């Protein structure tokens, strides 16, 4: 898997590839995420047609606080890639990739539900696991593990 083309095409929007335990991660600017995803899905040599997983990470109290992580798999080539987009605490918004991979729909809803990260242009951004009237986003690090909410 050669990521040089990708870096030439997207310039500074794409970070240096990091390899750990044989897995490659790539940091991406949030502004380029949809264009980049479309490119790596359609590019013959990369062909990431299968979005395995999409999830959030909260690195509180570090800044930038949130990450959205995409795990991609290529059915044709059998290789994997991880994309990571950092988001600031004050503005946890990112463009939805539901237009690139349909499967992102429920993943993004879950990420919104549990982290409060909003996905722009998502067709139906509602809570998915928790009830609609639930307050807060429980996978945030400042959400307590147990205890009762004061009335």
């Amino acid at each position: 898997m050669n990521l040089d083309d990708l870096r030439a095409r997207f310039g500074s929007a794409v970070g240096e590839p990091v390899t750990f335990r044989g897995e490659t991660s790539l940091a991406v600017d949030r502004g380029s995420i949809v264009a980049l995803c479309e490119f790596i899905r359609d590019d013959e040599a990369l062909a990431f047609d299968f979005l395995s997983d999409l999830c959030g990470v909260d690195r509180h109290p570090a800044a930038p606080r949130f990450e959205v992580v995409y795990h991609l798999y290529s059915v044709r080539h059998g290789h994997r890639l991880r994309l990571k987009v950092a988001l600031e605490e004050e503005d946890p918004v990112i463009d939805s990739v539901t237009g690139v991979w349909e499967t992102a729909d429920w993943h993004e809803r879950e990420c919104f539900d549990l982290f409060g990260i909003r996905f722009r242009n998502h067709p139906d951004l509602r809570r998915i696991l928790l009830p609609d009237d639930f307050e807060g986003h429980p996978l945030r690090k400042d959400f307590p593990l147990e205890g009762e909410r004061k009335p």
Partner: protein
Amino acid sequence: MSAETLSLNLGPQHPSTHGVLRVVLELDGETVVDARPDIGFLHRGIEKLAENRTYHQVIVLTDRLDYLSALSNNLAYVLAVEKLMGIEVPRRARYVRVALAELQRIASHLFWLGTHAHDLGAMTPLFYALREREALMDIFETLAGSRLTPSFLRIGGLAADIDARFVDSVRAFTDTFQARVDEYETLLTQNPIWKHRTKGVGVLDAGQCIRLGISGPMLRSAGMPLDLRKAQPYSSYDEFHFEIPAGKAGDVYDRYIVRIREMRESARIARQAVDGLPEGPWTAAGSPAVFPAKDELRHNITAVIRHFGLVMEGMKPPAGEVYQAVESPRGELGFYLVSDGGPRPLRLKVRPPSFVNLQGLVKMIRGRLLADVVAVIGAVDIVLAEVDR
């Protein structure tokens, strides 16, 4: 055509939804105009709980995801931690893991077969399938002391070595199992009612499956032979001989055929694993993640201290992140672990195949009859504990 549709709640308390799935159906007569799945009734916050436990303590949580194949979850999780830690697992342990994962796949498919056929009005297969599943549960119980939640795998290996009893019981099971599958097939494969209820129902082609992230038997039934045991072998799967059954039509019937043939293949793999079982250690002794042997604790003070440290504080993997996926009975089951170098995971994300596969439901049932909804939900083979986590 009437202008008005009827809203009907299917579930969350309905036997054919296999747990607590709720689907709000919009019906025109018996035809499904639209459907809205509603999930989350079984959300226990397992990912949040995992962030507050040591890596060893998470193993028991994984049993409670897909409780019909607890050992597959154990396997995916321990493989992820081992990758993070860089632990090389002894070959004997890898073989036992393969045997257990395949027996678990058979047990899971048997439960699916029995309940799915029962949903569609065929009661007999349930009794046949649960008879064999009971034999497997006995094997797990003898091995681990628990039927549904064995928690038998450990970071670096197994909870204990296996003995001749296990090997003998797996041999006895695999000796007769192919003939048992023939019995199930006699009941269903050419049965006109079964074919009528399942052929051409809930069709998804391979392209649709991939766009929807659908994996496992559902994807393979559409003619795409993608199986992570072959595509990205883990735990020595590359040393075993087996076929990847695939269908063609991508309908409920082909999903049945694929799972039936998978059970036969799994029995072959489990047999190979016990027949070719290597001698040697069953855990990566000496690794900082592995508990010292019980025997050592009686006369070695450093072992006691290490044991105490692992229990009270836990181990500290290097900072970094890994994603490890296995082929569970339902598809790609992945664990994404993020470590900040501390004794607890910064983040643990489960990629549950049931959750993702369920997304295809609406596409499969729109425009079909209400009775087909039951067939389609059964053929997705969901476990709600995994969907909701």
